[in-house]
């Protein structure tokens, strides 16, 4: 048990020393987005400080995933702009300059290649590490952070939903990102694993100072990781503040997230 834990620590350090992202700040300014007649975002404005961990809470279908996809440049807003470190990335997203990783709600692993190839994909395609041995050991230690040691050669279709999520987290880390967007990173995970993810996010915050935005329904996770919490309601950020400020709020739209989690 003791040696196992030591092993884990070592791997953690290995990964942490590999990561070197420069923290970035984000400004989402007045964006609106409609799909047909369905207006999802209405003049939404949001600022994320560098090295901050921001948690976004919102009802299902409120547009949380759509907001994340705007920030990472997969969807363009109808109106409004998005800035990363002051650069307007609304039309042209320079992915070499701003390394933004995303853990998709659906995990979005490539199903035709193994877990290892998924995790190594970024480094391999961009020829960042060409030494196979070094790459393998990096992938292994990254997988062990998310408790998936030894799963390198499994195909994604043979993984459970929670395992896929964790592979997606490992794959995101391998980009050495400046900003990580987590779309429900703990959906389908047991409480132990939720604790591990919280530890990972806090570790990244303390040691790498990477900026993180986490969409979650898990108030327990939010309480552990959030510097601030933003409530997405009706296409806008209804309120933003620390966990305690939100928890003690009397507004019913905010209360519902905290009350429902108690039962």
């Amino acid at each position, binding site marked *: 048990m003791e040696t196992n834990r030591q092993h884990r620590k070592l791997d953690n350090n290995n990964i942490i020393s590999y990561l070197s992202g420069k923290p970035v700040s984000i400004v989402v300014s007045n964006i609106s987005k409609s799909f047909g007649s369905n207006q999802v975002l209405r003049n939404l404005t949001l600022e994320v400080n560098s090295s901050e961990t921001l948690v976004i809470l919102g009802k299902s279908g409120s547009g949380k995933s759509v907001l994340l996809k705007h920030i990472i440049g997969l969807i363009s807003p109808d109106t409004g702009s998005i800035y990363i470190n002051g650069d307007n990335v609304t039309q042209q997203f320079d992915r070499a300059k701003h390394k933004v990783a*995303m853990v998709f709600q659906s995990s*979005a*692993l*490539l*199903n035709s290649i193994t877990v290892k190839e998924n995790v190594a994909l970024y480094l391999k*395609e961009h020829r960042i590490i060409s030494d196979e041995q070094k790459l393998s050991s990096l992938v292994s230690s990254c997988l062990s952070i998310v408790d998936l040691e030894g799963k390198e050669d499994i195909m994604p279709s043979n993984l459970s939903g929670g395992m896929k999520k964790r592979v997606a987290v490992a794959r995101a880390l391998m980009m050495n990102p400046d900003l990580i967007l987590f779309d429900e990173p703990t959906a389908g995970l047991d409480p132990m694993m939720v604790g591990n993810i919280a530890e990972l996010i806090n570790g990244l915050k303390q040691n790498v100072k990477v900026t993180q935005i986490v969409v979650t329904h898990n108030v327990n996770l939010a309480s552990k990781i959030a510097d601030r919490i933003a409530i997405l309601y009706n296409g806008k950020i209804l309120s933003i503040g620390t966990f305690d400020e939100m928890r003690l709020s009397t507004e019913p739209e905010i209360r519902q997230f905290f009350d429902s989690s108690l039962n």
Partner: protein
Amino acid sequence: MLKSINSLFNIIGGILNILTESIYWSKDCIINRDKIYFQILNIGSNTIPVAALISLFIGGVLALQTGPQLAAFGIEENIGGIVGLSMVKELGPVMAAILVAGRIGSAMTAEISSMTVYEEVDALKTMDINPVKYLVMPRFIAVILVMPILVVFMDVVGWFGGAAVSSANQDIHVAYSIYFKNLKELVDFIAVLNGMIKSVFFGILIITICGYVGLSTKGGPREIGTSVTKAVVLCFVSILISDYFITRFLFLIGLD
């Protein structure tokens, strides 16, 4: 009406876009040779058996249709050249293209459109990996290399199919030696090259159409099937229409 013309131009624009991107990313073909090699094997192993079967029968039916007519005029010894040329210039490349569209194009569209629907393509984009480079370019290079070989293979098998029918059929009754002697006189390298050029053109058409349809799939899993049907129909129609124009073109530049 205006809308459908507009969407037709959108499709053509989209396909041309995939084409230029594929050509651009071909600069990375050496470092991606593993993926290209895999696609070559994939295309080859999936088409060769069926290609052998259908070209054997195409050659046979060509002989069966034309042989008795020629025999009625007493000029049946010309059958070798007729089957040989039809195979090399027209049926070889067109049938190879139809086969590749059906076997390779459909599978490619299914794979890419499911990757699009399940956000795998989005994931590639966030990792700064160009989807055309990663998914289309290896197939693009592979098809350019494989099509001419596949066509020559089908030509030869078709010749033998024609020869077998010509010698065995009582109404035609042309021996192998006469059949191939005539074939050798009429089919020259230029004619074979003509078919090879056509096939490369068709191969590029198939890969870019299927890449475009796959990457532009919108909606849920149900659209994967719709995309596959759309891509295959689009391939068939554009192969047969463009065949006329490329034949004209090759005729004009003297490659006939």
